[in-house]
């Protein structure tokens, strides 16, 4: 079992955890920030080698194309977030919003969070998946509580209680799933592994699978911020430090959707069990509509974009709910493109909020008049989020609509209605952020170099949407075919 960890996948998981330990001991926050960035970059380098070891399956680790794809995405977003974090932290300390003692905890938890996410993606054992998600939740809760404002504490308390209860249900679901696989695979690690489950799924008892599916969907649905269970997401984003929001909105939702996608595979294999399409589609649509309408009254910019994450997670869940290679392809592309765009958006918003000394729409206006580069980047990000051409979200939403119409035009109509309502308010807020009279800039003006990661992300989104190279298209198609 131990030799599992000696592989590149093992290294990818252990590196951040080890970095978390080191960062726990490093006293000065400046060194900590640099180490954090270096660790994240190293992790991405290691993960870049993962495609070579696709197909490695052990009792603990399972490396298939879907896992590798999301690991690459998570590591890349973590890397750019860590670069952004170095600059962000310097400004926060200079404006005395974060005291030096807390930063050691911040960097340690940052790396623990990334390590936990990679562990979930690459694990084969349901127990490890659950423990990793638990560790990620605790790390995130501590980081969100960092700014020590009243709102931050309330946000982390809400985050912890809701996610704690959610994953408790997930643990119960894991137990029942194990119970279902017991008669076919016998006691021991095999009955707790994704490969074993997929193999034993046709022979399991459908009713037990249903029971397990309910608990697991609710548990991991909370982490995926699906509609009624999304309440922790907006507060976590608004109060926590922005680099954390960049990862939180991008990777945690993807990881939870990844687990649900694995679960969908198991459920689809068993004919007696209920078809996972209906609940997923229902929750996805509810997320899109609820987020679309909740965007309008928002006065806080980061809370506004967190609802946009809930909306796009809903679209991905909807696509996975419909099922079939085309819909899964669209859902996967949408998840990828949205993660890249959303982390770029949070980086722009973070810089703007620091510059304007506040994160309400009233504080940040008229960016284009005297900060043309930042204003243009934020405008491009929000245009991409609104699903307008030429960025990738337009193509992915087009593909999702194509798949939805194949299922039923009414579903597509409801989905696109939600997307139009959300696009409308995002355009209106974009205009208030970037255009009109400019507000004062008490904080430091970010250098142009700071926006390089943002343009990198947008370039990737543009390429993925309109000019996806053949190899990447083959990669996405093989993933879509592999996940049933």
């Amino acid at each position, binding site marked *: 079992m131990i030799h599992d960890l000696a592989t590149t996948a093992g290294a990818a998981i252990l590196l951040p955890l080890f970095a978390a330990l080191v960062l726990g001991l490093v006293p000065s926050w400046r060194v900590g920030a640099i180490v954090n960035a270096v660790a994240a970059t190293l992790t991405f380098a290691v993960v870049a080698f993962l495609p070579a070891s696709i197909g490695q399956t052990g009792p603990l680790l399972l490396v298939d194309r879907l896992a590798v794809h999301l690991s690459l995405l998570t590591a890349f977003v973590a890397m750019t977030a860590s670069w952004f974090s170095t600059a962000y932290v310097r400004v926060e300390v200079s404006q005395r919003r974060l005291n030096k003692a807390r930063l050691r905890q911040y960097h340690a938890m940052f790396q623990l969070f990334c390590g936990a996410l990679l562990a979930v993606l690459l694990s084969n*054992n349901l*127990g*490890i998946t*659950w*423990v990793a998600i*638990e560790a990620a939740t*605790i790390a995130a*809760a*501590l980081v969100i*509580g960092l700014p*020590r404002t*009243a*709102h931050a*504490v*309330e946000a*982390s*308390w*809400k985050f*912890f*209680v809701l996610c*704690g*209860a959610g994953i*408790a*249900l997930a*643990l*119960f679901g894991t*137990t*029942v799933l*194990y*119970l279902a696989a*017991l*008669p076919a695979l*016998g*006691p*021991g*690690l095999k*009955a*707790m592994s994704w490969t074993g489950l997929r193999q034993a799924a046709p022979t399991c*008892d459908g*009713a*037990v699978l*249903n*029971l397990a599916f309910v608990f697991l969907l609710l548990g991991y649905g909370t982490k995926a911020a699906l509609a009624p269970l999304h309440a922790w997401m907006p*507060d976590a984003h*608004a109060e926590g430090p922005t680099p954390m929001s960049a990862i939180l909105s991008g990777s945690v939702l993807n990881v939870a959707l990844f687990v649900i996608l694995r679960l969908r595979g198991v459920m689809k294999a068993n004919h007696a069990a209920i078809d996972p399409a209906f609940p997923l589609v229902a929750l996805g649509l509810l997320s899109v509509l609820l987020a679309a309408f909740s965007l309008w*009254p928002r*006065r*806080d910019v980061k*809370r506004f974009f967190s609802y946009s994450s809930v909306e796009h997670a809903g679209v991905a869940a909807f696509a996975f709910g419909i099922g079939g290679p085309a819909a899964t392809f669209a859902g996967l592309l949408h998840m990828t493109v949205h993660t890249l765009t959303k982390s770029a958006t949070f980086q722009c918003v973070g810089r703007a909020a620091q510059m304007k000394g506040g994160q309400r729409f009233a504080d940040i206006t008229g960016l284009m008049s005297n900060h043309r580069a930042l204003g243009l980047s934020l405008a491009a990000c929000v245009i991409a989020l609104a699903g307008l051409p030429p960025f990738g979200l337009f193509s992915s939403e087009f593909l999702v609509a194509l798949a939805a119409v194949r299922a039923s035009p009414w579903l597509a109509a409801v989905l696109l209605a939600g997307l139009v309502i959300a696009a409308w308010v995002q355009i209106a807020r974009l205009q208030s952020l970037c255009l009109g009279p400019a507000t004062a800039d008490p904080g430091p003006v970010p250098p142009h170099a700071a926006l390089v990661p943002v343009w990198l992300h947008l370039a990737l989104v543009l390429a993925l949407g309109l000019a996806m190279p053949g190899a990447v298209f083959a990669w996405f198609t093989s993933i879509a075919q592999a996940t049933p």
Partner: protein
Amino acid sequence: MQHLGYGVLAYDVAHLLGGAALVASFVLLYQRRIPALINTYAAQGIILAAAAAWQGHVQHAAHLYVTAALTLFAKGAIIPVLLHRIVRALDIRRTIETALGVFPSMVLGVVLVALAIEVVLPTTLGAATLAREDLAFALSVVLLGLLMMITRRTAITQVIGFLSMENGLILAAVGVAGMPLVVEISGAFLVLAIFFVFGVFVFRIRERFDSLDVSHLDRVGEAPR
């Protein structure tokens, strides 16, 4: 696994301990004062440890004894003592402020248990009877823990509701034969982490506001943001 049914000692004792854990959950719902609540929680921890030990004996799985010891030590002793010290150190108001009255929440608890049994038993016809019984009791304890978190305002009772839900989970994990040790480590790890975090929270909340009443936190949430 030999046939388990009435009259077989292993089944009867497991059934008894599961029922005891369920009763402990109801007693938690019944409490009006915080110290009594903590002691009841300690009792439930001990019952859970006994159930784990007994499962270890029945399934001849050595690791369950370790789990029993861990549970007894953590949930039976350390957490209640720490909770008592916090209550005394921060001189928290002793009475529990309830959102839903004690009797209505008890009635709701009974309904939840009925639902748990109605859901678990017909669906797990294939599994061994011992596992089905344990699962039903475990689900009931989890639902009662969740109910406790919803119907009480004070922060400490929410914490204890959360912990009793964890007890339900451990009961479920223990009940299923052959669950690998991983679950045990996670259980322990979880308990430790929760206590640590709650400790930090309590300290910080205490530092932030004067009372532990969660509703005070709610008022912070009311400002439109």
